[in-house]
């Protein structure tokens, strides 16, 4: 097991390096205006000198090697426009706590709502009118089909009206947290409910459940002890994934509610074209997603004893 995890970590590290290298190469194609605070006023010679100083005239491999060197020392570079000359690491350090708090809250909320919804749906497939199943299916279709950029907007618009809370976020007022957390978690809620229902229905048709029922095990105990526990194993892999979901959702939600977090920051620096900031944030986000997928695989391996570690690992398919 330890060997599997170590192998998987090394694999992820290599992937991460390749991803960062590709991102850097792509970013070299960005408009060079983004490296200057006052591009319009500069002469061509001045522009060239600055580019030289930033190391942007070096051959690509040298630039990438330099950037990795910087990263190892925990240095993300300096901002150009957002706060000229200020270290990016310091800017981000201030923003991260808000994003993490929101993300974790949204995750907890998603688990707390998604799992009961999934269970209720699976149970109601056995009842006569299947009310919960129908309600859940309609909800799933709406959230899955309508683009998130649209339903986040509607949640903000009508949520703030019905609850009588302000549209914008204020860390000191607890009630302004409700809507962003709800927005961030709705995708995961639906995701958990959908898959939990499917796995539970599959599991409930298996022979050992039929045996348990024939033996006279109470219905509640069957669904609690047998069905739910077995059905939840495949979902464990989705927990880190759904944190990623939340991360990507936060790009949009944070800037909608003008939350001073990392997601909102990325949108902001793209709008003002601050290249070094975009670079640093994209690298951080890619790293997060690599780590998320890694955690998913490791958790899966720990929680499901049926997975063997001796088989050769291939694609995650």
């Amino acid at each position, binding site marked *: 097991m330890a060997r599997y995890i170590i192998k998987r970590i090394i694999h992820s590290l290599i992937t991460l390096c390749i*991803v960062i290298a590709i991102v850097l190469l792509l970013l070299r194609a960005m408009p060079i205006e983004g490296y200057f605070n006052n591009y319009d006023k500069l002469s061509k010679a001045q522009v060239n000198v600055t580019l030289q100083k930033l190391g942007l005239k070096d051959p690509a491999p040298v630039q990438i090697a330099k950037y990795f060197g910087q990263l190892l020392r925990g240095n993300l570079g300096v901002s150009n426009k957002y706060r000229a000359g200020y270290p990016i690491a310091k800017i981000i350090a201030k923003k991260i706590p808000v994003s993490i708090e929101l993300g974790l809250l949204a995750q907890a909320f998603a688990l707390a709502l998604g799992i009961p919804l999934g269970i209720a749906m699976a149970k109601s497939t056995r009842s006569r009118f299947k009310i919960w199943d129908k309600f859940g299916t309609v909800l799933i279709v709406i959230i899955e*089909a309508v683009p998130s950029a649209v339903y986040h907007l509607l949640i903000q*618009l009508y949520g703030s009206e019905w609850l009588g809370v302000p549209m914008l976020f204020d860390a000191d007022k607890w009630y302004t947290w409700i809507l962003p957390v709800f927005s961030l978690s709705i995708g995961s809620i639906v995701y958990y409910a959908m898959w939990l229902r499917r796995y539970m229905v599959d599991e409930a048709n298996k022979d050992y459940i039929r045996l348990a029922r024939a033996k006279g095990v109470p219905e509640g105990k069957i669904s609690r002890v047998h069905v739910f526990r077995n059905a939840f194993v495949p979902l464990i892999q989705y927990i880190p994934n759904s944190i990623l979901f939340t991360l990507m959702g936060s790009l949009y939600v944070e800037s909608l509610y003008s939350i001073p977090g990392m997601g909102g920051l990325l949108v902001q620096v793209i709008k003002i074209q601050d290249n070094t900031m975009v670079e640093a944030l994209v690298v951080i986000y890619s790293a997060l997603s690599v780590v998320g997928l890694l955690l998913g695989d490791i958790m899966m391996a720990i929680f499901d004893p049926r997975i063997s570690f001796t088989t050769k690992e291939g694609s995650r398919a």
Partner: protein
Amino acid sequence: MTLHGLKSSQLEGSLTAELKKQVSPYEQYRGLSEEELFTEASVDESNAERAGYSNYSYWGATLRCFFQDKVAVFFLVVIISVLLFTFIQPLLPNQKDPKTIYNDAGGVQIINQQPDSEFWFGTNSIGQDLWSRCWAGTRTSLGIGFAVASVEAVLGTLIGLLWGYVRKLDTFFTELYNIFDNVPQTLVLILISYIMNPGVGTIIFALCLTGWLSMARFIRNMVVIIRDRDYNLASRCLGTTTGRIISRNLLPYLVSVIALRVSLAIPEAIGNEVFVTYIGIGLPTDIPSLGNLVQAGRLLMSQPNLRYQLLFPVLILATITISLYIVGNAFADAADPKNHLR
């Protein structure tokens, strides 16, 4: 659930029939006289030829399965009528131009006019007709969606088939997939739109760049599973060409996956267009698109009486995406040969 019940009862019925035959194999011959029993049967050549023929047609069964789902048929009608209408709308009489700014008698722009008989969806903040802008926007967005979906279908299927069928390429594609899959699509979209000039082409390119991934992986897994099944081995032994094996033996299993991915790719593309427009790196504002319309409506949404400018585009968008989602899922179910057993 219901499918399971149906299948098992069917199986049980055929099993009991089989059992009965075994108990008394001569049951059916009891009424015959001795003479009839012991004379040679005539051989019918044409009957011999009929062996092995079944009137199963893949597409026939798929369509029959699909049309049994009444909800899906309803949404199919909805999506077809919306599609037709987006193209018919500019040809109808008395339609306004989506880009013209309208002035009233005094020469003042008619801004933020509530919906009335003249402007069916009202006018926007600079006096353009929202009704025609909505449909023009739908055309743009659907165009993007279809372009992305078709590239995705072709590229994804091709790569998936290569990945699954050619063993030498397996490791290469698997590693490539693992790397690409680690970068969230949203980030790629943001990066590409940031680097390139905003426009329809950029968005299509950025979405296609990562869109083929999941499609190719599904196809690859399917091909790997089915490739070495006995019936394919038999086909190969009988000398069937690879092309025919792919089109006859594999493709029916792949159609459902392809259909599902295509129908989901269109709403995804539309949603992503809305998202990049929000960040400010989407289509230029002079091209009406659902993303631009939603964005324009968003800016005014805090005023309740101007909310129609957000709600009309959102309504059209939601209708299209929900219909496509339901139709796609239903068609994918119907196209799966496993569901044709009834």
